[in-house]
């Protein structure tokens, strides 16, 4: 199962790199949001209740990261739906490989791409004056959690794609990315969100992922939010992967 999973991961990465229309939005859109937010909303750091941070850019970097990772999860789903539509999926099914490899390959690719996405925003942040409060250890934690979060979002994308079958249906979920983002602590501290967004964000796993990424960058190696970030991301990976595998089984229910 390892060799086919790796080969399928390589294929997924290769195709992502060869599709600029897929790749560019992952970096461009969050970068625009990052520029607009840091340029126009930096004064919010002076609001009562805003946590002590070295700068608003440091605070906003994780928002750009999770936004990019969510978009790439959606794109993983679109790519799988396209494979189902085109018939490539049938080619995989008629090959003597464990069907779990189809899911594993995509998730492995997401992990690698996720690390690359997070690295990109770290570099952009450093170039524009951000400081990584957690130092080298913080960078390693951000890369790890970024990769895990990418796997979680890709698993969600796959679970949807196996059920939806059509790429256009998966693509139609694009606005939900922003709804989920704004109903979390990705852009602003939970304490500053008004009701009911503050209550929703407390239940939104994305809040814990964003806070887990934010802490090593903006505040230092504070264990609690980082552990929470990893725990919640692990939980999302577990649930979403199970849903993805169930979706795959459902998709294959008519096959032998």
């Amino acid at each position, binding site marked *: 199962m390892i060799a086919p999973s790796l*080969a399928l991961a390589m294929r997924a990465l290769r*195709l992502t790199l*060869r599709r600029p229309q897929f790749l560019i939005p992952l970096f461009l859109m969050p970068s625009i949001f990052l520029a607009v937010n840091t340029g126009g909303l930096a004064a919010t750091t002076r609001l009562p209740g805003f946590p002590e941070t070295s700068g608003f850019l440091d605070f906003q970097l994780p928002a750009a990261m999770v936004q990019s990772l969510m978009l790439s999860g959606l794109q993983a789903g679109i790519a799988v739906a396209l494979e189902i539509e085109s018939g490539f999926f049938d080619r995989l099914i008629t090959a003597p490989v464990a069907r779990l490899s189809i899911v594993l390959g995509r998730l492995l690719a997401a992990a690698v791409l996720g690390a690359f996405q997070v690295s990109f925003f770290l570099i952009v942040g450093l170039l524009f004056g951000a400081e990584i409060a957690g130092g080298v250890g913080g960078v390693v934690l951000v890369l790890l959690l970024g990769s895990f979060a990418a796997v979680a979002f890709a698993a969600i994308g796959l679970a949807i794609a196996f059920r939806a079958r059509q790429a256009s249906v998966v693509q139609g979920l694009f606005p939900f990315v922003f709804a989920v983002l704004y109903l979390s602590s990705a852009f602003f501290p939970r304490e500053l969100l008004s009701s009911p967004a503050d209550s929703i964000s407390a239940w939104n796993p994305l809040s814990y992922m964003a806070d887990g990424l934010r802490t090593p960058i903006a505040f230092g190696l504070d264990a609690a939010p980082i552990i929470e970030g990893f725990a919640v991301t692990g939980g999302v990976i577990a649930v979403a992967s199970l849903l993805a595998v169930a979706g795959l089984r459902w998709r294959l229910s008519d096959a*032998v």
Partner: protein
Amino acid sequence: MALESVGVPPHAIVTSGLEKRYPRGGTYAVRGVDLAVDHGEVYGFLGPNGAGKSTMVRLLVTLLRPSAGTAFVAGHDVVKNPAAVRSNIGVALQDAAIDPLMTGRELLRLQSVLHGIGRKAVGARSDLLLERVGLTSAGDKRVGEYSGGMRRRLDLAMALIHEPSVLFLDEPTTGLDPSSRLLLWNEVRRLRDQGTTVFLTTQYLEEADQLADRVGIIAGGELVAEDTPAALKAQVGRPHIHIGLADPSDLARALEVSATVGDPRPGVTPSCMDVSVDDGSRELAALVRVLDDAGIVVESMAVKSPTLDDVFLQKTGEHLSETEEEVAA
């Protein structure tokens, strides 16, 4: 020694009462199909669009679960041991689902890994297959730059990467230009010569006639006839010589003198007639002679042999060519 006694199944593909019924509407895509395809045989599955050809292939390659009946491919039950079936088959489905952004060589490498071929063997095997399907120079180009025929040929190469004992080709030449079609036919013949069993679906009469050792005709999901192309055509009738007369008033006399060569009957117009004969070309000269001796001027003569379309007509009440035209319209 009988093949069974050394553990080799007597047939490459065997189905018994195979059915696929869709719950929605309860329609049968395939109904009660009994097949036995020998090892090393090219079996042509002929029928119009929607007859059940692709469903049959999907059942045999484990992409669809049968509603009833049994199917064995390469000696393995497709329901009870699908993994073993998948290890022994090569599949090129109707739509050559090939990533346009990957190169031919990259796709062959991926297919190799999926079939558990060791890294060392991949390069040489890919080169050999690319050469065989005439894509050596295009191997490092992205598939998006390939023509439809090149994609089909690459699809075939991918299906052959693990040297399967049974190869399924679902309408492999649909939409191909004549030269690509010929190249694919030659490759199918070469595979047969090497002992590979080929299960080929087609809606082209000529393809089935040229390539298949045996032809199964499917209509409405049911197998309505099955035999060698020659035997199927022989079931329909003998060849006949179609004669056009210069003067329609000669018809009665022409019918009389032609009876010494074959079985004549009037044609669809007053100036033509058909003479059933045993061979066709052998009786042509004799017929010219008797008509000439009788002073009858012949405007045209043509030997017409029964075609698989005639067989299709006899078995289903429609011409296969007509159903193709309907689909195209």
